[in-house]
């Protein structure tokens, strides 16, 4: 892939194929951790961190372990195994080596161990046949897209919470779900800017 193609892949993975609003992966934290902007950003940062690492490790696992052994169909199982072990390992290492980062990522790190966004990016990289560079660019773009979407969502939810204008039956989660749907429709507007 040329630099131009990598850049286009980066932009398209953030906006056109936004992992939350276009691919609908990782919706659980999108709803669960988006009521406060600060925690949403913590979650987003942890997702960027884990998706980058997981994409690297799963790419290596697939291309240097599963392909030579002709066991490609085991990718789901082995990806889950690799990601879970990796996150556990990183958590242990961070606790010792960088307590500051460990504290700021906090509970989000184990929370996203088996998040489908993490596994989804790894599987996408494999399905599209990306090389290492393209995989990492796609991982960075997708996870930044996650950070962007969850931050926007949290910003909106902070403003509409306890709003007297919202009918009582829609307050809380219902209006958040409607908001998510509208945001998703808005992101459809990016379709077509990149082929």
């Amino acid at each position, binding site marked *: 892939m040329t630099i131009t193609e990598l850049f286009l892949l980066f932009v398209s993975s953030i906006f056109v194929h936004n992992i939350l609003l276009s691919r609908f992966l990782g919706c659980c934290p999108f709803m669960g951790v988006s009521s406060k902007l600060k925690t949403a950003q913590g979650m987003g940062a942890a997702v960027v961190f884990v998706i980058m690492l997981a994409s690297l490790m799963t790419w290596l696992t697939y291309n240097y*372990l599963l392909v030579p*052994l*002709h*066991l490609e169909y*085991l990718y789901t*199982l*082995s990806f889950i*195994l*690799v990601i879970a*072990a990796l996150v*556990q*390992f990183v958590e*242990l*290492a961070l*606790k*010792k*080596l960088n307590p500051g980062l460990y504290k700021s990522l906090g509970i989000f790190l184990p929370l996203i161990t088996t998040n489908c966004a993490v596994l989804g990016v790894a599987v996408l990289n494999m399905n599209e046949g990306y090389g290492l560079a393209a995989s990492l660019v796609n991982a960075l773009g997708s996870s930044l897209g996650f950070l962007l979407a969850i931050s926007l969502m949290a910003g909106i939810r902070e403003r509409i919470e*306890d709003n*007297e204008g919202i009918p009582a039956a829609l307050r809380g989660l219902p209006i958040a779900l409607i908001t998510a749907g509208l945001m998703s429709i808005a992101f459809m507007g990016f379709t077509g800017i990149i082929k």
Partner: protein
Amino acid sequence: MNIVHVMIAPLALMGIMGGVFGALLAVASLVFRVHQDERISKIRAALPGANCGGCGYPGCDGYASGVVNEGAAVNKCSVGGASVAKIIADIMGVDAGSSVPVRAFVKCKGSKECSPRELIYDGVKDCASAATIPGGSPNACPFGCIGLGTCVSVCQFGALSMGEDGLPKVDLSKCVGCGACAAACPKGIFTLVPVTADIIIACNSHWRGPDVKKVCSAGCIGCGVCAKICPAGAIELVNNLAVIDQNKCIKCGRCASKCPAKCIKTGESVQVIEKSA
């Protein structure tokens, strides 16, 4: 060959991967072990686990490590009170010290009837944002309770509720004195008083008498009668507001009976908690 590829190879691969990762994590947990003082987990077990932050640390975990690592006082947990302080003191091998439990008190009597609601505030239903409007409050008195119930929403113990009169009510049987309401109130109308306190001045206004009279019929007008009449010298006038020193108060009640604004609360409510607790 076929059997090997279809059955054995996948099993072997997953088994080996699982085994390798397991071993790796086992080694990592030894290599990266963080030595934690065992007193921290003991203290954490003794704490009530309310995570209210009343001690000044972020949650009970924070306080437990604060006691061991930073030498925090052992009697900071207002939820657990003296019994928990005693346990922590035993673990740390220090004296528990004495701590009289405290409870939240609303030092404002500016109910809807007493103090007019001057503006119709239609913004975010939160006292902190209502306090940012010009004048500092939608109500006539800029020192008093705004009445949007931010204190109620921050209370983790369900001890606060907004009364019919527009003022928060403290349920003394539920209040633990963590001070979350005091920290959240933009007007600072909450004060933490010892449960033994009997005389409390229920006003927060530093305005002079005539100005107070215009905005509230229940506010301290700063006349100083209470300070003059107090035989123990426990009350003094600070900036047009009577302030009482609970350590000097002899609970005679003379101040309350002479107060022209009737803004000195005598303590049956505070006393009740002692009996029921």
